[in-house]
């Protein structure tokens, strides 16, 4: 195990080193060198990640029958007698799995960007930020304690800010990056306060102790409550708030659609495959704690997830910007993973612990097919220079590779066998089916909607009415189509991984079998969605407009994303800027400072009134002297 801890360290060191190299010396490098440094670094990282994960799952990870946690860290900052922030690495099933996901998608994005960002100004800066992001994200998943996770959580947020605002002369990109940072920061405040509460009562930041079901924390009887809820409920709920911010759960999802202002490969990496699943990862990381200490919070998570997935799926049906459709689809799919965690139980026998495994499985498969969708969308945007569906149509002739790979990803997300999305989505539906029929119904509906809006997107891009293109769209070079094909391959094969053998909530192997009563209807609803989309969008028809008008208010509300952005603008512009800050600034200048100036004013006035007393004229002094003598004498006498 020792050498793998060392390898894991190198997985972190290489990207930060290439960030520093590109950040400090980038301006003196050619684009080619910069791209080469970034990509080579990530290639090595990917290789090391595969080695680590492979050996974890097949040799050193398993002790007896269970997959154990291995960690090593050093003390970075001493805080109190019990609490200290350590930095280190932790290898367990989910962190090893995440290593594979992050490094694969990141490598694909690095290669793809060589073509996509070719000749772009700030190419070196782009690769520097990509390396910074990879470093932060890998550090986040390898964190052995919750505080290190928070540290990298913030770093991920900043890398995301920098990459969304990559086109910094574009005001919309600047606004989007600011919004993303501030909304997630607000959520992180919850995360931080949650950590403070949790660490005060458990006296530790360490994940090993926080999730050790046989440890003392799980047998402590802390009955402290605050406003009717136990302190642990507050802690886990607030920590989930942090996760909800990053993973774009309602109502903190507003930043993600705007984040599409960033370059498309960045959206594929950060806002589809890796950073946005950090919230899911966080809940999964603390899962035993959630399950045993605060089970009702898990229920809350499940319902928030279900509401989010339904909401996002409905909105996705109405968007016309292809990246925004994918963004809402991402929100919906991540919410799916949250639901799965919410309905799961701890342990691995039977269906009890299925949700946890299904959630991680979906995270795994979703990362690849969603990255594929984004990179495919990027190839389309690259070819037609527009994000809008109405500028596309009939592109299957011009972009054959993009077309086929995109179709594979669409089939996968729609849950059609044998593509990977079918397997993972099916497990989630089974898990929900066993726990809560309302959640199941909701997720079932979402599955149908997903198939519909994905094929709406697919037909609008590749079929439908052909546009008059200024120059004929062309397929990009191998550095862009290569990653597409590789990810398509992964989308086809990853569904067959016997995931339940490797990743479960307690590390024990789990047996799963096909539950036909769930699987067949879920395929059918997917097919139904596809059929409807085919009728409406394959050939140019007016059906879609008619449907839209018949929906009336609902359609309008959905296409305005249910007015969350307007609400957000109202809260920031009117309340935070206008009401609170404006009045504080006024109060400060006029009341607090006015009081100080008033002091100066009256003491100035008073002194000019009494300055006559020291006139230096002897006669005046003599008069005052004489008068005083009389007054005193009079006082003494009477």
């Amino acid at each position, binding site marked *: 195990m020792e050498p793998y801890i060392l390898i894991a360290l190198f997985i972190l060191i290489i990207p930060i080193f290439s960030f520093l190299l590109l950040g400090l010396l980038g301006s003196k490098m050619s684009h080619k060198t910069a791209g080469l440094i970034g990509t080579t670094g990530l290639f090595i990282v990917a290789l090391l990640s595969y080695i680590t994960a492979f050996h974890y799952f097949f040799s050193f990870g398993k002790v007896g029958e269970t997959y154990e946690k291995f960690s090593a860290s050093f*003390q*970075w*900052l*001493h*805080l*109190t007698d019990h*609490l200290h*922030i350590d930095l280190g690495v932790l290898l367990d099933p989910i962190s090893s799995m995440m290593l594979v996901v992050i490094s694969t998608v990141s490598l694909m994005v690095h290669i793809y960007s060589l073509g996509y960002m070719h000749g772009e100004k700030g190419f070196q800066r782009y690769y520097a930020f990509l390396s910074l992001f990879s470093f932060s994200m890998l550090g986040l998943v390898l964190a052995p304690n919750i*505080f290190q996770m928070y*540290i*990298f959580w*913030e*770093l991920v947020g*900043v890398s995301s*800010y920098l990459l969304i*605002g990559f086109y*910094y*002369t*574009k*005001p919309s990109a*600047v*606004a989007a990056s*600011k919004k993303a*940072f*501030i909304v997630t*920061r*607000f959520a*992180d*405040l919850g995360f*931080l*306060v949650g950590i*403070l*509460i949790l*660490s*005060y009562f458990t006296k530790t930041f360490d994940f090993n102790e926080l999730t050790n079901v046989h440890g003392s924390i799980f047998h402590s009887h802390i009955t402290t409550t*605050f406003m009717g809820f136990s302190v642990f409920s507050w802690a886990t709920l607030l920590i989930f708030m942090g996760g909800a911010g990053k993973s774009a759960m309602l109502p903190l999802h507003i930043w993600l659609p705007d984040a599409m202002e960033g370059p498309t490969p960045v959206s594929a990496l950060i806002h589809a495959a890796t950073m946005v699943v950090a919230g899911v990862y966080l809940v999964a990381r603390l899962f035993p704690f959630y399950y045993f200490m605060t089970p009702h919070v898990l229920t809350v998570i499940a319902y928030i997830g279900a509401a989010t997935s339904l909401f996002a799926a409905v909105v996705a049906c109405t968007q016309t910007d292809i990246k925004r459709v994918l963004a809402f689809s991402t929100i919906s799919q991540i919410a799916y993973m949250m639901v799965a965690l919410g309905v799961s139980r701890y342990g691995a026998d039977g269906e009890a612990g299925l949700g946890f495994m299904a959630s991680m499985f979906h995270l795994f498969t979703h990362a690849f097919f969603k990255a594929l969708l984004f990179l495919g969308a990027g190839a389309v945007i690259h070819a037609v220079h527009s994000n809008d569906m109405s500028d596309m149509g009939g592109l299957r002739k011009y972009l054959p590779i993009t077309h086929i790979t995109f179709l594979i990803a669409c089939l996968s997300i729609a849950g059609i066998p044998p593509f990977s999305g079918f397997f993972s989505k099916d497990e989630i539906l089974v898990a929900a089916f066993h726990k809560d029929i309302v959640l199941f119904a909701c997720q079932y509906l979402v599955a149908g909607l997903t198939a519909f809006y994905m094929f709406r997107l697919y037909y609008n891009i590749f079929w439908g009415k052909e546009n008059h293109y200024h120059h004929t769209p062309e397929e990009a070079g191998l550095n862009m189509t290569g990653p597409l094909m590789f990810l398509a391959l992964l989308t086809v094969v990853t569904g067959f991984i016997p995931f339940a053998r490797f990743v479960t909530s307690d590390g024990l192997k789990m047996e799963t079998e096909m539950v036909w009563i769930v699987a067949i209807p879920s395929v059918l609803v997917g097919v139904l969605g596809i059929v409807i989309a085919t009728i409406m969008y394959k050939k140019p028809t007016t059906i879609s407009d008619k449907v839209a008008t018949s929906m009336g208010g609902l359609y309008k509300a959905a296409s305005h994303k249910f007015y969350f952005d307007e609400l957000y603008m109202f809260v920031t512009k009117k309340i*935070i*800027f206008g009401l*609170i*800050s*404006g009045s*504080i*600034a006024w109060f*400060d200048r006029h009341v*607090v*400072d006015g*009081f*100080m100036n008033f002091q*100066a004013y009256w003491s100035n006035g008073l002194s000019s009134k009494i300055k006559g007393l020291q006139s230096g004229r002897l006669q005046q002094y003599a008069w005052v002297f004489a008068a005083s003598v009389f007054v005193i004498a009079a006082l003494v006498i009477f």
Partner: protein
Amino acid sequence: MNFLYLFVILPLLMMCGVAVLKQAKQVKILMLVGSGIILLTSFVLLYLFLQARAIDSVSPMLFRSDLMWYSAFNIKFSVGVDGISVLMIILSSIIVFTGSFISYSMQEQVKEYFLWFLMLAIGVFGFFITIDLFSMFFFYEIALIPMYLLIGLWGTGRKEYSAMKLTLMLMGGSAFLLLGILGIYFNSNGGNGNLTMNILEIAKTHIPVEAQNIFFPLTFLGFGVLGALFPFHTWSPDGHASAPTAVSMLHAGVLMKLGGYGCFRVAIYLMPEGAETYKILFLVLTGISVVYGAFGAVVQKDLKYINAYSSVSHCGLVLFALLMLNKTAMTGAVMQMLSHGLMTALFFALIGMIYGRTHTRLITEMGGLMKIMPFISVCWVIAGMASLGLPGLSGFVSEMTIFVGSFQHPDIFHRVITILACSSIVITAVYILRVVGKILLGPVFDEHHLALTDATWYEKIASVTLIISIAFIGMAPFISSNIISDSLTSIISRL
């Protein structure tokens, strides 16, 4: 001779040199070299201190020596340092060093400017090396007077008004402080023996609780005014807005730290029961400072006002953490002093660079500077990230130490006020990103700005020095944290 005297003697020698030299260029070179030597000396001090500490881990202060100043009242010039003072001296020398580089472009009355600048430096260094109340007060006042002239003569905007306001308010604070110091002095003998001004000797006795309850608030307020305690902070926006760049740096970077340093070295250390009595009141005031300053910064349009309000918020956090009266929070407070000193100096330096080029400080009149002056802009982003608490830079570690420390109190009041203070991290993000978005990013606002140049060599040296220091504290916080918490032991043991 005591090694610590060097920190007064070196600036004094430089003052003589500046007075003798004729040409502005020579004066500037002397400043660069001299401040470099002071910086080196401060690192030598750290080295010597750590060595001496390894041998003697008991004495609260090292490098002790006394010179009789006025024997009738038993007033001595007593010097001595612990880890915290050493770190504050290093902070001061970094700021003096970078301030000298930033002032390299100074044009008018160069000689006089640097004379007053050095006098300010003497006041600051003197304050940190002395451990007797009279000498501390003496150096405190020495630091204040040059401010008036530096702002009034070399400032911009409503400089006379601002200089007067700043001086009067701080003088008002020092009137409270003088009362507090005298109160401590006359209660310093524990009922018998000589009265003394020496902090270490006073700490051996116990000041009667009734006296503490009178003199703690006076002393704390006196230092608190300098630490921008609400509602006595209004000198800060006006004063900073009018001050020349290097003076703003020194003032916000170091002088405001005198307030926080004094609060714990004098007020809390000598009168712990008084602190216990009044902590609720002052926690509320400092808590207000933290949030109020941050909100105040959100809508300002002048870069210096934004930074001044941000300083109110960050310095409020220093006093806030000190009043938590536990080791972790107080360690965080000192780290926050270091961190804020470096960050704010960097901010003021950058504001000076931008103002020197665009001749405006209004964020509504700038845009897209990233394209025109990339070096300055990148430094600005780094400073902003430090200010909003990005891990890896100094702001994060100090804030986290403070928050975790403050949260260790089991009662609701402390918890709630800590959470409120935590919320400042969001508001900070709002105003930092607002400025970054407005002035650095987006399209170029003014065509004339396209002709402007990026930072010069001396500006680069200053910025890079500050950034390296910020990153060093942020990446290796255990070094400063350990030095600070060791030195706090003697103070904590009295609480």
